[in-house]
């Protein structure tokens, strides 16, 4: 899987390159700022771009803005944005173009190697990977009231769905039966007045759409 990395810290750039190499990814280029990232994406057309948010020259939101450009100009390139902090507003921006092929994760998550690489593959395949912290912020910001009607277990399931997990992923994470998860999900869809959806992925999209409007 062909990957471009944009990260201004030399240490982390080298670390991420090694991590992805070991995980079977093909890192075609690792750059240190947004301009180089856009050039590299244009040149290599990778499957996925891994982008740090704070990069030169102003160290604020260069990565987010570059990710938005990539999502608009190169729809085939999936983008995973990494950051020391996650912000609901940046997530809303990222999801505003499309809700597929996008990830927004805390940098901490790279410490959990297997899960991180799974998330990267999921996004490259057109899925989504939102950090639990982002999901919590999105839920707080966009739907404070109906959510109070959800049981704690249902909230947990909603959070996992918003992170981009499939039903199987939720079964693994909560260690409950498949049918229990299905029951929670249909209950959530009823309470939030969402249209019923068949596949895992469509359910995830419905939740994301719900959270960002």
């Amino acid at each position, binding site marked *: 899987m062909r990957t471009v990395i944009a990260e201004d810290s030399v240490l982390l750039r080298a670390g991420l390159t090694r991590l992805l190499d070991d995980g079977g990814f093909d890192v075609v280029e690792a750059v240190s700022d947004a301009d180089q990232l856009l050039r590299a994406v244009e040149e290599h057309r990778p499957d996925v771009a891994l982008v740090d948010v704070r990069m030169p020259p102003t160290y*604020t939101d260069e990565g987010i803005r570059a990710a938005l450009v990539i999502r608009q100009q190169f729809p085939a390139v999936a983008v995973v944005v990494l950051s020391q*902090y996650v912000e609901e507003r940046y997530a809303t921006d990222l999801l505003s173009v499309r809700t597929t092929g996008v990830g927004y994760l805390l940098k901490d998550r790279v*410490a959990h190697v297997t899960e991180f690489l799974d998330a990267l593959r999921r996004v490259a395949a057109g899925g989504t990977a939102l950090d639990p912290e982002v999901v919590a912020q999105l839920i707080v910001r966009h739907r404070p009231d109906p959510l109070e009607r959800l049981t704690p277990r249902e909230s947990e399931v909603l959070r996992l769905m918003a992170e981009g997990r499939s039903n199987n992923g939720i079964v693994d994470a909560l260690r409950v039966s498949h049918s229990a998860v299905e029951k929670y999900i249909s209950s959530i869809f009823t309470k939030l007045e969402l249209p019923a959806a068949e596949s895992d992925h469509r359910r995830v999209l419905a939740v994301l759409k719900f959270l960002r409007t």
Partner: protein
Amino acid sequence: MAAELRGVYLDHVTSASVVNLRTAPAALWAARSWRATAHALVGLPLGVVSFSLTGGLPIGAAYCAGWSLLYAAPDAWPMTAMFLLLTVVSPLPALWSVRGLTALQRRRFRMLLGVDIPPLPRPGDQSPPLPGDAPPPRPGNPLPPRPSDLLPPRSRDLLPPRVGDALPTRPGDVLPGRAVRAARAAGTWRQIAYHVLALFIGVAGGALTAAFWTVGIGLGLVVPMRLLGLWADEGWLPATAPAGVLAVAALLAAPWVARGVARTDTAVARALLGPSRNEQLTLRVESLARSRADVVAATDAERRRIERDLHDGAQQRLVSLAMNLGMARAGLADAPAPAREAIAAAHDEAVQALAELREFVRGLHPAVLDDRGLDAALSGIVARAPLPVRLTVAVPERCPPVIEAIAYFVVSEALTNIAKHASATRAEVTVGRTADRLRIVITDNGRGGATIGGRGGGVGGGSEGGGGTGLRGLAQRAASVDGTFALHSPVGGPTTITVELPCAR
């Protein structure tokens, strides 16, 4: 500025010591005595000129006009009209000449006595921009502009208007306009009062000083000449013995008379030509407000700097460390159990440290605050709060960065306090803007009874300690920018904190 003012006020004339008979003759050739004498003598003609220009001309014209109206023959109306016109017009050059005369008098005090009469506050000097006030520029960035780039330039001035702004000298200023502004300016009338008084002080002081010196030196010359038979006595001078005593007494007293006149004149000039107590206090308040704003801005800049340093340094290293440990943990599945356990523990520690550092650093100053404003930055705090919080932010136009930073801090601290002390199950944060105030209201449904100081605990906190430092910190941060802080927390709840911050554009 304060030190400057104090320095000017050290009065070397009034520090003159009490007359001591043994040291008295030394005063005769002390430079200070002669300078005081020169000051008094110059003061006489200058007083006459000052009075004529400021008081004399208008008073004279008014007197003539009055006399004309009462006593002049009816067919002398052109003269009466002229006097009336003069009465109206003559104060104008007075107003116009006040500043020149004041400058002249100031120069007299400085050159002859070495006394600086502190100047009245004048507009003109600009303070440097506050540090950390504007976000750094983004040179040559090809990426699309962010929404915040489209905001109007932010205001940097939290300060009251400067004293003396009432009298700006504009180019192309016409004389009457300038005179009117001069007449309305604070201090002009006190200056005129001095210039009128200068006549009396100048004449009385100059004459008195001159008289003592004349008697002292004159008789001092006459007495020895008379003794030597060189003086053809015409009989109007006192006898030799009393004349000698008088000469010595006048000579010894003359320096002190001159110094006394100088001291009186200086006191009057300070009171009337220098800034009034009110103006001094205004200047002081202005300087304090400015330095306080600098301190607030510097603190804010410092928090940003620490945040940036930690983000670029410790946080990146910790991520790298946690990542390497994670790779080791995943890759060394067949290592001996103790090694695996050690690596797993180190990995967990690193992840935990990373989470704690992240919490701390984001609390310092979130980058998203500069970037997308208060609304965006508050989502993060509210989402991480351990209780459900309803957040409503309606701030159409952004406030200065320092104010946004304080507002962020207020919400962050208040929610921390609620979580710690209030036993609340939910909270509400409302941020709105009314005219030039940013209003933050934080409510919880906890048990109430919170106080700002003493043992009050946090918002809604009981008496189990905590020292109330959280709330006091909030009140102090709000006060540092002339904001207000109000706490309403009856026992049993609910608790409401209302903070208002200035948010001038």
